[in-house]
């Protein structure tokens, strides 16, 4: 009986239950706690509030944007699997974020692109989460066409938005200015 149970459990594992398989753009790519030696300046008080939203990552994990930007800057990259220019913009943003410890990057794909987004996330393999955002999310950030990049500073203020993508040096400078201690 014990042997039968073991075989059944093993079979369940093979079927993809909790197989420990890496999920690109999913829960395992969410940022961990903010390092103790890193601190950020708050955004100017007159900066507009970032529209909050909840969505699912490409692996189905729920994410709430305000949980990310409560204590750290977040770079939002509005992207799509069918957009040829988007991967380059997304990859460059990820490279800049990697040079700025504690900053988070969240990709946002359209609601009808969930299927393509999983492949997109796997191909890019950026190590950052990718959310499937419904139309309201795109409208709330006035994004009419991907790619677009938005910088949100803690505790949730929109600092800048760049339709069509952002120059690398401009993003570097914008993030540098947000650090109080690093």
């Amino acid at each position, binding site marked *: 009986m014990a042997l039968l149970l073991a075989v059944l459990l093993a079979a369940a594992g093979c079927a993809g239950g909790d197989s420990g398989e890496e999920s690109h753009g999913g829960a395992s790519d969410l940022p961990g706690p903010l390092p103790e030696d890193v601190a950020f300046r708050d955004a100017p008080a007159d900066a507009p509030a970032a529209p909050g939203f909840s969505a699912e990552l490409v692996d189905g994990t729920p994410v709430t944007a305000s949980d990310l930007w409560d204590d750290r800057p977040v770079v939002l990259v509005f992207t799509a699997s*069918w*957009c*040829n*220019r988007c991967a380059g913009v997304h990859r460059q943003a990820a490279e800049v974020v990697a040079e700025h410890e504690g900053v988070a990057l969240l990709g946002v794909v*359209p609601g009808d692109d969930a299927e393509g987004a999983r492949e997109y996330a796997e191909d890019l393999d950026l190590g950052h989460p990718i959310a499937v955002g419904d139309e309201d999310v795109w409208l709330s950030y006035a994004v*009419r*066409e991907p790619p677009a990049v938005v910088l949100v500073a803690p505790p949730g203020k929109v600092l800048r938005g760049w*339709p*069509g993508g952002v120059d690398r040096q401009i993003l570097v400078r914008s993030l540098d200015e947000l650090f109080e201690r690093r």
Partner: protein
Amino acid sequence: MRRAQAAAGCLSAALLGLAGCGGGGEDTVEAHLRLVVPDNNIRVEGVECAGARPFDYIRPGASFSLEAPDGSVLADGELPAGRAENADPDVDWGVERIPTVCVMELELEDVPDRPRYRLRLPEGRPLEFERAHLSADEPLQLIVR
């Protein structure tokens, strides 16, 4: 005489129709189309683009079909990426990012010859045009509405 010509035309059409059903012999045309998406989005001229809201259903990979007036599908495929063009070529905006339209080029070969066609996109009204407006020299411009 006119009636005889009409009758002969009908016979020819019937014969051509049969030939078409048989898989060969039907007259075909090339349709080179310039699909203009008037989204007036701010872009750098020349960059690759898709339709911006509310035309976001017009994007690379989205399906299209070319139909005869009776609704039969004559050709189909997927839309390519577009290129951003100055929305008002008479204006020198003096800046890099300008109001643009997104233009997609469709080159359809061996399209069965019909007097009129309808280009159907994933959403919106089909775009109608006449065979007589197709030219080998320059693409026929269709503006999405």
